[in-house]
């Protein structure tokens, strides 16, 4: 599958919980518990999930900031989970932008110093004048200018700091960019400009994005395909419009229904999930979603549904539920599915 720049196969990242004087492992936080998907070259792959879903851990695992417990990560044909792969070369092709612009920049470094350092690490440029020139070029690409070069992070607004983070990530000419909630901390108007910038950069540099966010409207705006994550597993993957207009998994449906819409005249149905977002320490048996799922049956409590494809649309649910009729009048059909 050469068109997939990134393939993740049954990836698991478990964090051991240690307790007692001798620090025995008493359990695991199964942050990522068997995730498989592929990202096509040039697309923006959106990943949505709430807190506890494991999406941030997934991003860190792919970036190899966290060691995976099991599974494979294949980037452009190269298996990253093999011990032999060199992280340094990899860092040039895959970069990440973090969520908190107020914490992801070293407060003691000026912008110039940050950019220079990255250039030094990857030997992109050296010598004061060429470093300076490249720095200016990068700043211009993200919509900043020379006057910002010698300032400290605290002198910038959140949106500007994210731009600096993007500039820094672009130094190494990556092909693949993971964006972990890049606009969550930003105001609406700033968010708009940062998203536009990301779109422009994607076209200019032929980038592939993995866009992670809990803000469904933003993901909708940016993505070509979207995956929904719940408690460490993917429950649905589909084209953007398919997922937003006709979701097939109950969790996705409720998620979409919970998004507030900026239109007061649309009377939304009260479709609410009961209970709280669960913690990945105690994962429910069977289908992870069954405790909160209004359609759950006994089968859901016992058997975990696999992620099965149906015409480009992947769903992990035993039943084929029609949500269109509203929460109460859904029909639960059982259908023979073909496994791909």
């Amino acid at each position: 599958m050469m068109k997939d720049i990134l393939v993740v196969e049954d990836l698991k990242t478990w964090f051991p919980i240690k307790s007692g004087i001798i620090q025995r492992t008493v359990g695991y936080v199964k942050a990522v518990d068997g995730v498989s998907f592929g990202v096509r070259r040039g697309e923006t792959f959106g990943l949505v999930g709430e807190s506890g879903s494991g999406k941030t851990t997934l991003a860190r695992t792919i970036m190899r900031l966290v060691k995976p417990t099991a599974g494979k990560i294949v980037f452009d044909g190269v298996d990253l989970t093999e011990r032999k792969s060199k992280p340094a070369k990899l860092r040039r092709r895959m970069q990440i932008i973090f969520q908190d612009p107020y914490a992801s920049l070293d407060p003691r470094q000026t912008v110039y110093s940050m950019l220079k350092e990255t250039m030094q690490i990857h030997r992109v440029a050296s010598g004061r004048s060429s470093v300076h020139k490249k720095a200016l070029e990068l700043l211009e690409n993200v919509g900043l200018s020379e006057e910002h070069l010698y300032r400290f992070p605290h002198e910038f607004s959140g949106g500007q700091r994210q731009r600096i983070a993007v500039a820094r990530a672009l130094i190494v000419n990556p092909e693949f960019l993971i964006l972990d909630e890049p606009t969550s901390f930003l105001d609406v108007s700033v968010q708009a400009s940062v998203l536009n910038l990301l779109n422009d950069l994607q076209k200019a540099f032929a980038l592939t994005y993995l866009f992670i966010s809990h803000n469904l409207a933003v993901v909708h705006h940016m993505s070509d395909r979207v995956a929904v994550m719940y408690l460490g597993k993917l429950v649905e993957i589909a084209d953007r419009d398919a997922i937003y207009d006709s979701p097939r998994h109950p969790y996705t449906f409720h998620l979409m229904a919970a998004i507030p819409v900026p239109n007061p005249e649309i009377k939304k149905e009260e479709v609410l999930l009961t209970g709280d977002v669960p913690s990945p320490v105690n994962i429910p048996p069977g289908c992870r979603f069954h405790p909160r799922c209004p359609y759950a049956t006994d089968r859901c409590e016992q058997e975990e549904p696999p992620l099965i494809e149906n015409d480009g649309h992947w769903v992990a649910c035993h039943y084929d539920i029609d949500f269109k009729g509203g929460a109460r009048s859904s029909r639960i059909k059982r259908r023979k599915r073909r496994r791909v």
Partner: protein
Amino acid sequence: MENSEVGTTKSEWAARWADLKYTLYLLRKNPLVMAGIFMTFFFIALMFLANYIVDPKLANPAGYPEFGGNYPFQRSYVWSKGNIINWGPGIHLYEGPEFFLLGTDGWGRDLLKMIVLAIPVDIENAIIITLGAAAFGTLLGALAGYVGGVIDEVVLRITDIFLSIPYLILALVFATMFGRTIETLRFSILLVFWPTYVRLMRGQILSEKEKSYVEALKALGAGHARVLFGHIIPNSIYPVLVQATLDFGSVVLTFSALMFLGFSPSPSLPELGNLASDGYFHIFDAPWLMMFSGLTMLLIALAFNLLGDGLRDVLDPRIRR
């Protein structure tokens, strides 16, 4: 583009200078801190100039051959010229033309001059010991905190052992072990003070390590050395600075305590603790000896303490920005 109130900075160092000016501004606001700063500067200036103000040869009791260099009091005046104060039977006081502002010590040396000569000794000690302990402790603490695992455990246990013993006793033990020259005494006291820095730095590193920018740097491909020495340590250094200034005072006191307890390399060494121990036996008849050397110790400790307090307030990241 946004309007900048700081103005365009032309280069890296200009930016850092502007940052420093902000620190100085904050410092200026607190009167106690300013007092501390002045006092510290005063003492440090004295440290360099002492040997020019007072002839160091005066410290040598053999410089007063006419009085034989015997221990009992030869001369003792306080505050008055030509006025004899009889402190008690059997103590004969000298009547002479000289006026000693703070009186004299057991050898008849002018106390004021001795104190002036003693200040550089003490402050030099303080600086060397504190910097040494801080440097060593910080490095070890940084490594323990960053690497973790076995190294961390081992370092922690060692510091535990050191910290479990009261510091003066520990100092005594080391002083006895290593001898009485100034260098060995310095080393002994350094061994007493370094564990605090290990703990301090380790704590800072542990929390700094988890921060987002460290992760970002790793994602960019920075190696461990660069991250630790170029980023984490510079961001964690401020509590160490503050602790160091506070420790100056403690070190002076500890060193003096050792002198007092009899570990001085030579009885005539002009050093505040030494001078104080001289006066110990005469605390009722000639209180000035112990009083003034003690007072000077207090002032030095106070100066550095205030400085440290002020630094801590100023460098608190919540108040900055």
